[in-house]
C-alpha cells in the first residue's frame, strides 16, 4: 500500500546514469575536441550536430520516432553528407577560411530545420529538445550502446593515431609523404560525425559542444603536450559534469543546461586563475580581476535599475507566453473503458420507443429501465396502446423516487386518462396534500382497471398528444 516509501529513490540512483553518460561523453569528446581545436574548426561540431538534428527532424516529419534506430540512421546519413562537405572544402589554397563554410552549413541546417519543423506538431519544442537534450532521462541501454560505439571509434583512432595527428597538425607534410589527406579528412569527419550523432540524441547540441570544446580548451591552455592535454581534459570533464549534475539536483535545474552553464563558469575561473598565475606581477593581475568583478557588479546593478524603470513606465511591460512541447508519437494504449458509455442519443432512443408495439416487450423494458426518463417514456407508450396497463405503470412512476418532473408528467398524463384534474404542485405543496392526491389517482386507476371493457376503446384512448407535450425525457 505504501509502495512509494519502499521504492524511495536516492539522489545517487537518479543521477547515476546521467553521470555515467557524462563520463562516456567526456571520454571521446575531450579527445576529439583536441583535434578540433588544433584544426581550428571549432564550430564543425555545432555544424555537424545541427545536420544530425536536421536528419532527425526530417525523419520525424516522415513519421520516424525521434528516439529510435530509424532516426539514428537518418541523422547519421545526413552527418556523413556533412562530413564529405567538410573534407572537400579543406583546401590548400584557402582564400575562404573553412570556418566560414562551417558556419554557413550550420546556419543552413538550422534554417532548414526550422522550415521543416514548422510543418510538424509542437515543432518549437522539438527544436528546444534538440538543443538541450534530455540527459537526465538517459536509459541504461542508451549508455551501453554509446559506450560500445565510442569505444570502437576510440580504438580506431588509437590504431591510426599517428596518421590522424599528422593530418591534423601538418596536412602539407602529410601530403608530401603521400598520404591522401582528403580521404583521411573524410574518415576523420565521418568518425566524428558518428560520435556526434550518437551524443546529440541524448545530450543535445549545446552539451555536446561544451563537452567537446571546454575540456580541450582548458587542456590546451595549460600545456602543449597532447597526452597531458587529454588527461587534463578528462579530469576536468569528469569533475565539472559531476558538479553540474549535483547543482542540477540541489538547485532543481534542467540537467543539460545546468552542466553547460557550469562548464562556462569553470572555464572562466580557470582562465582567471591562469591569468593571475602567469602574469609577471601577481598583485596587478589580481587588481585587474578585482576590477572585472566590480564591472560585473555594476552591470548587475544597471540591469536591476533598468528593470525597475521598465516596470515603472506603463506600457513598456508586456509578456508573451511560450510553452508547447515535443509530442512524440507512439505510446499506443488500448481504449477499453471508453466503450462502456454507449453513444446515447436521447432523441433517437425516444423515437425507438415510439415505434415499439409489443406490449409484453414494453413492460419487460419498463421493468429493466434504469433511468426515470426511460421508465416514463415506456409507460407513456404503453398507455397509448392500452390505457389501463399504461395507467398502472404511470402510477409506479408517480409514487417512485424519480425526480419531480417525471412524477409530474406521469400525473398530468394520468389526469388525462382519468379525465379529471389533479391540482397539486409536487415541488411546493406539503406531504399531506400530495399523498391525498396520490390516493385519489390510485382510486381512479383502480376503478379503471376493474371496469370490464375492451382495452383500446373505453375509456376513449387519449389522442396522440402533440410530440412536444407528450414526449418525455428519455434516459
Amino acid at each position, binding site marked *: 500500500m505504501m509502495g512509494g516509501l519502499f521504492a524511495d529513490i536516492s539522489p545517487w540512483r537518479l543521477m547515476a546514469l546521467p553521470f555515467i553518460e557524462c563520463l562516456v561523453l567526456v571520454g571521446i569528446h575531450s579527445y576529439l575536441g583536441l583535434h578540433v581545436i588544433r584544426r581550428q574548426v571549432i564550430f564543425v561540431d555545432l555544424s555537424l550536430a545541427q545536420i544530425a538534428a536536421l536528419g532527425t527532424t526530417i525523419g520525424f516529419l516522415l513519421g520516424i520516432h525521434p528516439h529510435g534506430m530509424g532516426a539514428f540512421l537518418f541523422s547519421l546519413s545526413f552527418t556523413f553528407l556533412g562530413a564529405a562537405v567538410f573534407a572537400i572544402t579543406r583546401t590548400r589554397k584557402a582564400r575562404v577560411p573553412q570556418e566560414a563554410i562551417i558556419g554557413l552549413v550550420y546556419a543552413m541546417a538550422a534554417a532548414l530545420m526550422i522550415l521543416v519543423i514548422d510543418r510538424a506538431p509542437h515543432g518549437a519544442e522539438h527544436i528546444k529538445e534538440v538543443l538541450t537534450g534530455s540527459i537526465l532521462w538517459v536509459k541504461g541501454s542508451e549508455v551501453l550502446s554509446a559506450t560500445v560505439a565510442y569505444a570502437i571509434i576510440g580504438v580506431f583512432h588509437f590504431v591510426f593515431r599517428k596518421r590522424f595527428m599528422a593530418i591534423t597538425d601538418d596536412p602539407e607534410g602529410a601530403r608530401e609523404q603521400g598520404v591522401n589527406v582528403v580521404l583521411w579528412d573524410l574518415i576523420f569527419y565521418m568518425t566524428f560525425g558518428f560520435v556526434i550523432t550518437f551524443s546529440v540524441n541524448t545530450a543535445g547540441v549545446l552539451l555536446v559542444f561544451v563537452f567537446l570544446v571546454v575540456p580541450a580548451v582548458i587542456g590546451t591552455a595549460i600545456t602543449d603536450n597532447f597526452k597531458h592535454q587529454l588527461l587534463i581534459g578528462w579530469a576536468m570533464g569528469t569533475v565539472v559534469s559531476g558538479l553540474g549534475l549535483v547543482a542540477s539536483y540541489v538547485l532543481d535545474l534542467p540537467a543539460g543546461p545546468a552542466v553547460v552553464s557550469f562548464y562556462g563558469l569553470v572555464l572562466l575561473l580557470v582562465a582567471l586563475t591562469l591569468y593571475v*598565475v602567469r602574469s609577471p606581477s601577481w598583485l596587478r593581475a589580481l587588481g585587474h580581476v578585482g576590477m572585472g568583478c566590480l564591472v560585473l557588479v555594476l552591470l548587475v546593478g544597471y540591469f536591476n535599475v533598468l528593470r525597475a524603470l521598465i516596470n515603472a513606465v506603463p506600457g513598456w511591460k508586456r509578456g508573451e507566453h511560450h510553452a508547447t512541447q515535443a509530442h512524440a508519437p507512439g505510446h499506443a494504449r488500448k481504449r477499453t473503458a471508453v466503450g462502456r458509455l454507449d453513444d446515447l442519443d436521447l432523441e433517437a432512443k425516444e423515437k425507438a420507443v415510439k415505434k415499439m408495439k409489443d406490449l409484453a416487450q414494453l413492460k419487460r423494458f419498463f421493468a429493466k429501465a434504469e433511468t426515470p426518463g426511460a421508465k416514463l417514456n415506456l409507460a407513456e407508450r404503453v398507455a397509448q396502446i392500452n390505457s389501463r396497463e399504461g395507467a398502472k405503470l404511470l402510477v409506479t412512476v408517480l409514487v417512485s423516487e424519480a425526480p419531480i418532473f417525471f412524477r409530474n408528467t406521469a400525473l398530468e398524463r394520468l389526469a388525462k386518462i382519468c379525465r379529471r384534474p389533479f391540482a397539486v404542485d409536487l415541488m411546493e405543496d406539503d406531504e399531506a396534500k400530495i399523498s391525498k392526491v396520490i390516493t385519489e389517482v390510485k382510486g381512479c386507476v383502480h376503478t379503471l382497471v376493474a371496469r370490464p371493457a375492451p382495452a383500446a376503446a373505453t375509456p376513449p384512448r387519449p389522442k396522440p398528444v402533440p410530440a412536444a407535450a407528450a414526449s418525455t425525457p428519455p434516459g
Partner: protein
Amino acid sequence: MKTRMNDPKIQRDTKPNTRLTALWSAACVLAIGAMAWSTPASARKLYVISSNPTYSSIAKRVGGNLIRVTYITKGDQDPHFVRPKPSFAVQLSKADAFVVTGLDLELWAPRLTDKSMNRSIRQGQNGYIAVYSGMKLMEIPTSRSRASGGVHMFGNPHVYTGPMNAKIIAKNIAIGLCKVSPANCAAFKKGYRRFKYQINRRMFGKKLIKLLGAGTLTRLTVAGKLIPFLQKRKYRGKPMVDMLGGWAKKALPLWGQKLVTYHKNWIYFTKTFGLNVIQEVEPKPAIPPSPQSIRRLINTMSRQKIKVILAANFYDESKVRKVCKRVGAQSVIVAFSVHGKRGINSYFQLTNHWISNLLAAYRRAGAFK
C-alpha cells in the same frame, strides 16, 4: 603553437593546479552535503501527485486531510509537456498515487515514472490513477496519420474542461485512493460524493436538480442537449429553462454563440455550454499558425461575423490579439488550469473564470443586444 612550447612561463603551472583541486574538492563536499540534507522526510499522509494542478485540486476535495497533493506541470504551462527536472522523479519516487489523464495527453508520464523507479505508480498498478475511465470521449480520430498534426489517438484528452467530466475525475480518484488505502475508503467516497454534489449544484442549481435529477441533467449535458430540452419541456405550464440555476443559467447567453479557439482543447466545455466552435487558430492541432492559415482564419471570421477567440494563456497571445484586431473581435485569454492565474484556486473558480470572461467578451462585442 610551436612557439608556445618553448615559452618558459607555461612550465610554471603545477602549483596552482594543486590549489585548484583542493578548492574543487571542497566545493564538491559542500554540494554533496547539501544534496543529502535536502532529501525531505516522508510524511504519514498519502502522497498524491498529479500531472496538472486541476487534478490535484479535485484530488484534494476527494482526499481532504488524508492526502497531501502536488503536481508536475504548472497551471500556466502546456499540459502536453513537462521540462525534465530531477525533482519530478524524486517526488514521484515517494508518491503513493500518480493521477494522470491516462490518454496521450501526458506523453512524458511513462518516462518519468520509469525514472522514479516507483513500481506502485506504474500503469496498471494500484497507485496509477487514470481519470478518463468512464468518460464519453470526443473527437476519436478515424485516421492516425501525423500529417493532420498532433492528433490525439484516443480522442480529445482535455477532459476536465467539461464540468460533467470533473465528477468522473473525482470518482476515478476516489476509486484509486481506495485501492491505495482501503482503510480510508469511506472518507474518500464521502469526499467524492460531496464534490459531485457541489458540481451539480453549481452547474444546474438546486431547483432543477430536484425537478429533473442530477442523472438526467448530466446525460443531457454530456449529449449537448440541456438547453434545447429545457426550452421545449414544461413543468406545470412553465418552460423549465426558467428554473435553471448555477453555471448553466449564467452561461445561458452563450448558448449557440460562435467562436474560434486556439487549440482543440475546449471541446468538452463548448459542448456543455452550447458554444459553437467554428474553427481553430492552429491550422492543425499543435501546429502553429502560418501566414496562409491566418489569412484564411481572418476571412472566415469576418464572413461569419465571429466575435471571440478563446485561448489558453500558454499560447502565443500576440497572434491571437493580432487576428482579433484585424477583424474587430475580442480575445479571451484565460487560465487553462487551476493555479493558471492568480486567484484561481479551485475547479469551481476555474469554470467561473471561463464563463465570466466569455460573457464579458461577447458583451464587449455587442453580441447580446
